[in-house]
Every structure is written in C-alpha cells, then in structure tokens.
C-alpha cells in the first residue's frame, strides 16, 4: 500500500458541489451523468457546468457513448477521475482530515 497522500488544498475541487461529484467518483471507475445528477439532486445544466470546470482542470475526463436504449442522437456521458484528479482528491481529503482533526 502506498504512503498517506500529502495534505494539499485544491481550490477547484473544494467548491461544495465539485467536491461531492469527485467524492462519488472516488471509488468507482466511471459513473454515468444521470447517476451523478440523480444522486446529488442537480439539474443537467448545473452538473454540466461543474463537470466542465473539473474537466478543464484535468480532474475528470468525460467519455461519450451511444445509448442503445435511445432512438435519437443523445448519448450516454461517462465521467471518471483522471489519475491527476484522483491524486488531487486524495490530497484534498487528507487536508480536510487534518483540519477536521484540529491539526491545522
């Protein structure tokens, strides 16, 4: 097992909604857009806006896939943490852990 992650505060991740999105993605390989939207009770627009910010910061990566259950052109959108995003999230959570433990 690797060593404990460094405690580093990442401002892009710290925004409440974005942290919750990353928190959901932390232990899975990928989540479909609709699953995140429903789990966090967000609108499509709000989730899209925050995913765009995370993707531009290289925290998440989006993958489009044709949906066999849809007859129109809409696609499934899969969201995953990038390796850099996963590291950043662990560092950010370590930072929050330290603050919560009163070490900072």
């Amino acid at each position, binding site marked *: 097992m690797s060593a404990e992650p460094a*405690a*580093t*505060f*990442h*401002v*892009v991740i*710290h925004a*409440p909604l974005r*942290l*919750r999105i990353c*928190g*959901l993605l*932390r*232990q*899975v*390989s*990928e*989540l*479909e857009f*609709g*699953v995140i939207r429903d*789990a*966090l009770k967000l609108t499509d627009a709000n989730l899209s806006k925050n995913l765009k910010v995370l993707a531009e*910061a*290289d*925290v998440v990566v989006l993958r489009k*896939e044709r*949906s*066999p*259950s849809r007859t129109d052109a809409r696609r*499934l959108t*899969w969201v995953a943490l990038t390796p*850099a995003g996963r590291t*950043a999230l662990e*560092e950010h*959570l*370590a*930072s*929050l*852990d*330290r*603050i*919560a*433990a*009163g070490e*900072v």
Partner: protein
Amino acid sequence: MENNQSAEARGGDVSSQQEALETLASLDVDRALLAERVVTPWWYHPILGGIVTLLVGAQALPGVLSMAVLALGVVMIPVLVTAYTRSYGVSVTAPVGPRTRRLMTVLVGVLTVGMVSNLGIKFTGIEPAWGLVSAVICGAVTAVLGRHYDDVLRTELASGGRTDGRSRGAA
C-alpha cells in the same frame, strides 16, 4: 494542477474544523447513497457463472472445439459487463477495500485451479466428463461468491473502503 496550497496555508482562512467535519460528513452521505445504487441484477451472477463454466470446461474439450468455446466465453464477459454498466450507470472494475480484494483473489484462484485441473484432465487421459464436473463447480462458486462480493462491495463503498466502521471525518 492549479490553485494548490498547503493545508497549513489554506486551512485557517477557508475551512474551520466544523466546516471540514460537515463537508466530510456530506461525502459520507453521498457515498452511502451511491452504494445503494450498486445493485447487481438477478441475472448477472448466474450468467457470469455460466461463462466461467464455459471457460473452465473448454480446457477439457478437444482441439478446435476448445478454442471456439474459450473464445465464446472471452467475448461474453465484456458483453455482460457492458450490458450491466449501461443499464445501471455505474462501473466498478476493481475491489474497493480489503474484503473485496480477498474475495477477488479467491475467485481468480478458483478459476485458475479449475482451468489447470481441466488441462490436467485433458493431457493425462482422464475421463473428460470430470472436466464438466470441475467446470460446473467453478461456475457455481463464481455465481455464489459473486453475489457475496457485491454485498461486501456495497458495504465497502458505503464506508469508503474502510472496514473499521469509521469514515472520513469520524476519526
């Protein structure tokens, strides 16, 4: 990654101890909600067990038939996994904690033992029907342990991969 600062630099002015605790607690709630969604459909593990039966049983079959059945089994696994992930919108391809890691090791071990034993049956001239017995046992173990794996996976997802009952922020 941009906008990074040390915990010491940011902690004092951005997050109080109480805010950090609340933030971590909200992540625990979200994680528990997500774990509830990771429900494998009833058909998943019986089909997976059937595929494992094919993969293991193929080792005992003669020549071309062995390769054909093996190829069929190998193709069916991604089809099954894709059907599941597209339907449920969740993809978990690796163990998330120590218990799921152990169960995965056991499952891979059972599959390996089954395949090796069937290769032994094939090359030592033992009655091929024993290969079928071995394959069915491996398939049944996969179906049963697979369901158990999912139960443990949900528990570990909800607890953040920790098995001591604590989650982040509860330390």
